[in-house]
């Protein structure tokens, strides 16, 4: 029987401000314990919070990027609960009136576009960290993270598979990095997701949902949602009922388990924080932020399709980060734009992934790729040889490190000399290729006979032999044509 999966995501993005949301303490990661916890962050009596303009600006930037409503007046509220890493006994958050309402995010699931609606995004402060090991029945509390600004971004339950949820999370991650409001570092907890998952029969009302916490990588998110969906379906098919609860994903066992049931659910008793007046946002502030916003990934994706004739899939890959897009534009402006897309999404990105290097640190700079693609297009080297040359460029064998960042003309002189020296030039002299073809035909009489008897496969074998004889340097189209002509005689 059919089941429909319904998923909504809540994401906490740590905002990239220098100082905390309500105090002037630093937000830098990795400092020694409690060295960045000010009197406000540790909630000493008599202190008062003062809101950081940088956090508000980042929230506005996000709202504009997702086409949301920026609420001109929003309210900070106290979310009350007790936990040792929450010194005040409440978290300052926004409840009834958040800074950002609505909006949507367009995502790519494979090569299909899909729009996910957003419910809201609100500003709040992070809690500290509890360390449970090494303290003989006690917990150690580090309050450096307490008061770090967060933007909690809540989606509508618009996703219907683990793949869609991951595609949304990746798109959101790319966006917050793109508009430079979050560093996106998931290992350091700068971008954290919780997933609300339920299942139902198509057409029926929403099923009871479970919230899965602790999804700190895209891979874990996919595994956790898949496990949870299977658990809920099996439970219902066995005549059971899903209980509303909070569950924790355990990556070691690849399972989710109960963390808090509905009966133990927290009663947060939200109320407006009397320490903070309403936040008013002027249209001047919104306009000045809007004026400085870079082209957004979706707009750029559509432009790449229009301007360079790329597929939506290729354009999406090239706009996963600003650095990749900038690299692509640098290359595509100079040479065949489709070839540039193929090389960046193919050879370059697989190398970068293999070695876990960011494109900004790629040893093959845009100038080198411009040169390489130029030499394929003008027929100097074959596409096959170009892959070897690319590897040599990557390894620094073609041009020295000092030239790697230099001008295109200087690089061209050196790189052309390398091709010459290594004898990599494409053979397009038909006399030379013809000689090699004759040798191959003489040595492979069996294949020739098979081809003449109607076996197409034999032809491919012969092409392979000729290419081998030229060490991959012949133009394959030319070899094909010449070989066909000879065999037809």
């Amino acid at each position, binding site marked *: 029987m059919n089941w429909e999966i319904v998923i909504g995501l809540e994401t906490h993005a740590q905002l990239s401000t*220098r100082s905390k949301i309500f105090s002037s303490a630093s937000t830098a990661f990795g400092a020694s*314990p409690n060295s*960045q916890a000010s009197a406000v962050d540790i909630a000493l009596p008599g202190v008062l919070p003062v809101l950081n303009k940088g956090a508000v600006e980042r929230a506005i930037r996000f709202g504009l990027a997702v086409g949301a409503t920026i609420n001109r007046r929003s*309210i900070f509220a106290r979310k009350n609960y007790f936990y040792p890493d929450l010194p005040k006994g409440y978290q300052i958050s926004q409840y009834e009136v958040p800074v950002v309402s609505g909006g949507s995010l367009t995502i790519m699931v494979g090569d299909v576009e899909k729009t996910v609606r957003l419910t809201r995004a609100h500003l709040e402060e992070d809690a500290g960290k509890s360390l449970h090991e090494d303290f003989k029945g*006690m917990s*150690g*509390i*580090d309050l450096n993270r307490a008061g770090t600004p967060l933007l909690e971004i809540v989606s509508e339950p618009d996703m219907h598979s683990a793949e869609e949820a991951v595609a949304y999370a990746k798109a959101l991650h790319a966006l917050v990095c793109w508009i430079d409001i979050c560093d996106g570092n998931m290992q350091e907890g700068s971008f954290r997701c919780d997933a609300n998952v339920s299942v139902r029969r198509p057409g029926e009302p929403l099923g009871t949902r479970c919230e899965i916490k602790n999804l700190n990588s895209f891979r874990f998110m996919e595994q956790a949602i898949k496990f949870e969906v299977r658990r809920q379906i099996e439970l219902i098919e066995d005549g059971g009922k899903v209980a509303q609860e909070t569950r924790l994903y355990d990556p070691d066992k690849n399972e989710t388990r109960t*963390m808090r049931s509905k009966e133990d659910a927290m009663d947060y008793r939200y109320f407006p924080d009397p320490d903070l007046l309403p936040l008013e946002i002027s249209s001047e502030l919104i306009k000045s932020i809007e004026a400085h916003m870079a082209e957004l990934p979706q707009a750029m994706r559509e432009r790449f399709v229009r301007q360079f004739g790329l597929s939506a899939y290729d354009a999406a890959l090239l706009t996963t980060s600003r650095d990749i897009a900038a690299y692509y534009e640098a290359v595509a402006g100079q040479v065949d734009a489709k070839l540039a897309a193929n090389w960046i999404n193919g050879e370059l990105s697989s190398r970068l992934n293999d070695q876990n290097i960011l494109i900004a640190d790629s040893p093959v700079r845009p100038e080198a790729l411009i040169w390489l693609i130029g030499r394929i297009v003008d027929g100097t080297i074959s596409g096959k040889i170009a892959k070897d040359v690319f590897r040599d460029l990557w390894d620094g064998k073609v041009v020295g490190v000092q030239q790697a960042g230099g001008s295109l003309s200087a690089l061209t002189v050196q790189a052309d000399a390398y091709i010459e020296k290594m004898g990599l030039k494409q053979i397009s002299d038909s006399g030379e290729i013809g000689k090699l073809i004759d040798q191959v035909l003489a040595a492979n009489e069996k294949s020739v006979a098979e081809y003449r008897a109607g076996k197409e496969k034999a032809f491919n074998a012969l092409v392979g032999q000729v290419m081998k004889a030229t060490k991959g340097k012949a133009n394959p189209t030319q070899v094909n044509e010449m070989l066909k002509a000879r065999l037809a005689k």
Partner: protein
Amino acid sequence: MALTLDDVNRIAHLARIEVEPHEAEQVLLQLSGIFGLIEEMRAVNTDGVEPMAHAQDLTLRLRADEVADTDQHRLFQTIAPQVENDLYLVPKVIE
């Protein structure tokens, strides 16, 4: 709205306040008095009045995003009951 002893115990639990059974009766009386006041206020017609989020009709002042605080954890930790490796020690709580 009539408050019950169960409500009192639940509120006490949420606030992590210990209320002995003999105190609960007293607290119930006091809280009911406060709820009585709230009931009286609710009787006022507030149709068309926008609720205030703050007692003062002002808006928030914003601070520039600059780091100005220095490390004072040694001073702060002089009043902490227990400290180890610069961490505050508390009875173990795991959620």
